[in-house]
């Protein structure tokens, strides 16, 4: 009787250990499944973060910034004339340089939705630097879009309010 009771106890412990192992394995599987299902979203989040960080620096990069062309050095100032030259060169010399799907500058005040070409500039509102047909999500920052404007045989600095928009591709 005592021997049987001991065996019973050992059996009980063994069953409990098996049940615990199975339980933890199931919990582990659940966590792993959750993590792996989140991978695509993680990749998109990473791209979004990169685009956000890029957009904060892009306006002050040498390719875009006004430098000292409009008097003193300015922050968040984009030279529109320089960007229009860059637009022609970007497909050949800057392919994949910034690693994003799309870069555009949209004038928000005064608002204008017409695309800028060599002919329509400066009477236009959207400069498409890198255009991609794939749909992505935009991150943007406000910039002053400045250019030299002619007036009465003279030139003055004209700055308008614009958004520098960077798009990244959604992985989902």
């Amino acid at each position, binding site marked *: 009787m005592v021997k049987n009771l001991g065996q019973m106890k050992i059996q009980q412990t063994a069953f409990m250990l098996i049940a615990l192992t199975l339980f933890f394995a199931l919990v582990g599987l659940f*966590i792993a499944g959750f993590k792996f299902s989140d991978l695509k979203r993680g990749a998109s989040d990473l791209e979004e973060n990169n685009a956000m960080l890029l957009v904060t620096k892009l306006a002050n990069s040498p390719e875009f910034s006004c430098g000292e062309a409009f008097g003193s050095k300015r922050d968040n100032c984009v030279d529109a004339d320089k960007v229009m030259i860059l637009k022609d060169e970007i497909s050949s010399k800057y392919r994949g340089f910034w690693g994003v799907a799309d870069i555009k500058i949209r004038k928000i005040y005064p608002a204008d939705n017409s695309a800028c070409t060599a002919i329509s500039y400066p009477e236009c509102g959207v400069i498409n630097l890198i255009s991609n047909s794939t749909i992505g999500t935009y991150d943007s920052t406000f910039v002053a879009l400045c250019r030299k404007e002619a007036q009465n045989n003279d030139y003055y600095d004209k700055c308008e309010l614009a958004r520098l928009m960077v798009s990244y591709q959604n992985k989902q």
Partner: protein
Amino acid sequence: MKKNENVDVVTKKSQKEWFKNLLSKLRAQEEMVGFGLIIAIVAIILLVFLWFSLSKPVKDNLENYEVQSFIKAFLQYTTGCENAYGKLDMAELILFCEDENR
């Protein structure tokens, strides 16, 4: 006398049974406490995991940057107003208005 002996035997038997019952109850309680502990540990692990997976990276700095960038861009906007030196931008216009109001 015999009656008293019978009563003694009955009480001893009931005492033994009561003790057995108590022992089995205690053992059951011990197992329940163990089970409860395991559930508590697993719950804590799951909560920690959930907290880590649900906590999003803070975007405050970047949102602050958006506000700062708007203010910087807005102050550079060239207005229609001009003085002897030419067109005024928003920052110059604000300073001009402040000077005029003094």
